[in-house]
């Protein structure tokens, strides 16, 4: 026991008291934040107002366009777009971009010019000349037949890459033309808008007790939890493998084995590194919690936070249990690989089987979110290797009956006992084999032999 704690503290301190741990711990959430905020921030940098000339011989579109593009209307539309973004996940990349564009808004300055009855060609060449001289940035030529199917609106701009501005103009123009068409057809635009309003679908999940709960953010929350467990498992599995290989490579194993039992050494290592992992996870979860509390006080995110699924203390306990299950399962596998190979590089080549197991678990968890009560969900959340990634998601989606959780924990604890036993066998022989990588038949022999 004394030696076990010596190993435990050694492994824990070796990881936690290094500046790379601090950096990794801080960097990971910062990187997440950066991915979320930086693009939005960059998009929100508004350039100078685009100086736009609108040639409108009918003089029907221009006033409406000006109205639609007034700062108030743009702000209104922005708010609407933000609302939509929070409500649902945009379907595709393109949809997402135009939604972002709407959220951003953009500034246009209308330049008034008189053209009289000049032919279109003359107007065009005059505008082209002005654009070339830098006096204007863009022009829009409205055709005579504004409402016709073959009506062609010519938009020429020197800022063709400003997709945000172009999107805003397109929206405003469409709206203007639509309104004009309705006016031409004697239809009351306000009435039409009222009639064609979207219905509001209120989606709530039903628990097995028939209680309602919000499901809007379920997918995202599951994703976050699944990814967090997956990443921690992958990182700390590799850490275990690294420390095992180092002790083998440097022959420190020989000193260790002459001081303590291999099983004690192995367990001390697993628990020590595991505690380091928990420390990091704890910092992340804690700061996530603090951040969301801070945000909820700071900004008007009330509706957003309400749709985050309720996480009860019991769930947190379950998440912790499954993190530990996953950790010990995969750490034992990585330790086994580490003691069978000769260098870290060789180890990473052989790390793919456990990595694939983990990834499969992560993919299963997506299926579990969609149907948490299916037979498939039951089996994957009970089976070793997959349970640590699928059961937390299942619990989040819908708390399964207690016996299923108990069964799953039982099966997995048994699996871990077996894995640690097998790994410590390979460890005690493999760690003293220098020079060559062990073959699978050799490893099999070590496991069977006392």
């Amino acid at each position, binding site marked *: 026991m004394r*030696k076990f704690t010596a190993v435990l503290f050694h492994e824990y301190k070796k990881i936690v008291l290094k500046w790379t741990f601090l950096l990794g711990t801080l960097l990971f959430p910062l990187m997440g934040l950066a991915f979320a905020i930086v693009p939005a921030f960059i998009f929100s940098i508004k350039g100078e107002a685009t100086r736009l000339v609108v040639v409108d011989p009918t003089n029907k579109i221009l006033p409406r366009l000006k109205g639609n593009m007034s700062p108030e209307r743009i702000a209104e539309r922005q708010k609407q777009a933000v609302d939509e973004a929070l409500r649902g996940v945009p379907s595709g990349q393109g949809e997402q971009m135009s939604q972002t564009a709407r959220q951003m808004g953009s500034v246009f300055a209308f330049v008034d010019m008189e053209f009289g009855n000049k032919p279109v060609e003359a107007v065009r060449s005059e505008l082209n000349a002005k654009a070339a001289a830098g006096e204007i940035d863009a022009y829009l030529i409205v055709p005579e037949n504004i409402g016709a199917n073959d009506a062609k609106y010519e938009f020429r701009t020197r800022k063709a890459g400003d997709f945000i501005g172009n999107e805003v103009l397109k929206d405003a123009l469409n709206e203007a033309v639509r309104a004009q068409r309705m006016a031409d057809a004697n239809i009351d635009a306000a009435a039409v808008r009222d009639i064609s309003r979207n219905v509001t679908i209120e989606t709530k999940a039903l628990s097995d007790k028939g209680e309602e709960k919000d499901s809007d953010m379920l997918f995202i929350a599951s994703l976050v939890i699944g990814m967090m467990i997956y990443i921690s498992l992958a990182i700390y599995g590799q850490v275990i493998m690294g420390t095992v290989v*180092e002790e083998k490579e440097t022959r420190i194993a*020989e*000193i260790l*084995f002459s*001081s303590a039992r291999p099983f004690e050494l192995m367990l001390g290592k697993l628990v020590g590194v595991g505690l380091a992992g928990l420390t990091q996870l704890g910092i992340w979860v804690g700061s996530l919690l603090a951040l969301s509390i801070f945000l909820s006080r700071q900004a008007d995110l009330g509706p957003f936070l309400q749709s985050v699924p309720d996480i009860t203390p019991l769930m947190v306990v379950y998440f912790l249990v499954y993190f530990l299950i996953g950790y010990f399962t995969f750490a034992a596998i990585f330790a086994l690989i580490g003691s069978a190979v000769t260098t870290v590089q060789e180890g990473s080549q052989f790390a793919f089987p456990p990595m694939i197991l983990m990834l499969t678990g992560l993919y299963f968890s997506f299926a579990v979110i969609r149907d948490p009560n299916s037979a498939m969900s039951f089996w994957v959340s009970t089976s070793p290797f997959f349970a640590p990634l699928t059961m937390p998601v299942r619990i989040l989606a819908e708390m399964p009956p207690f016996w299923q959780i108990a069964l799953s924990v039982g099966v997995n604890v048994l699996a871990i006992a077996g894995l640690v036993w097998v790994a410590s066998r390979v460890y005690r022989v493999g760690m*003293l084999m220098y020079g060559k990588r062990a073959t699978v038949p050799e490893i099999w022999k070590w496991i069977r032999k006392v």
Partner: protein
Amino acid sequence: MTENGVSLSVLGVTKKFGDFTAVEELSFDVRAGRVFGFLGPNGAGKTTTIRMIVGITAPDEGSIELFGEPISPKVQDRIGYLPEERGLYKKMKVVEQLRYFAALKGVPRADADKRIDRWLDRMKLSEWKSKKTTDLSKGMQQKVQFISTVLHDPDLLILDEPFSGLDPVNVEFMIEVLDEFKQANKTVIFSTHLMETAERLCHDIILINKSRKVLGGSLREVKESYGHDRVALRIVGGREVLDDSTVVSHITEHADQIDVDLAEGADAQHLLTKLIAAGAVVSNFEKVEPSLNDIFIEQVGGGVENA
């Protein structure tokens, strides 16, 4: 401290790896307070035996007792083991590694820190205390490894090829430290294939070859059992006597002397009489003990590397 005066007792130990027998029916005792040389060519089974003694692997047959007890974590704490293949954590500070190894041997933290300072000072490594292994030269690393072996003040020191890779100054230094252990009535076992070092340091030896014990006992006993039939000779004239195969079995000529191995049944006195009768001027006539090196070569034969 030393039960029955025997620190280590190896009894009929056999270890096999698949079809290969690394150690076969090996038995020997190591008495407390003695320096014990574990000799043999490469591949004889020295490291395998040492690994069984320190409890890294278990024998297939036979038994090993340390201080009168079978191997256990408690007994392991009384052993200081320096493996032949050594290493340190690459990115860890010297002091932290030493603390860890001390903790593994059950030394309380405060004691460990005092001892670490004392040993680092002795090894002239104090200023390297907070440096990482990668900053140390190879010689310094070996010193740190040696410190890690003795930090817990073991009663039995087991050193596998302790002098390999050390420069002469450090070899002398190490020998000095081993002497102190000897003075403190602690037991030292070391394996080597350097016979001169063994000859200089050991009270007792065992020689193994091809997994089996060849000979063993105190250095004096071993030498005496080999030492009756060699004479170191410096003569002028009378060389024809040395060709007489009834008296001389073999001669080895050196620059200024001849080593003469006597034939079976012949004795040194007889040789001297014959030489004088042949008119030889004898300036040196000395019965010599064979060196450990000679014994080693005779016993192990030609298939020896690095001996």
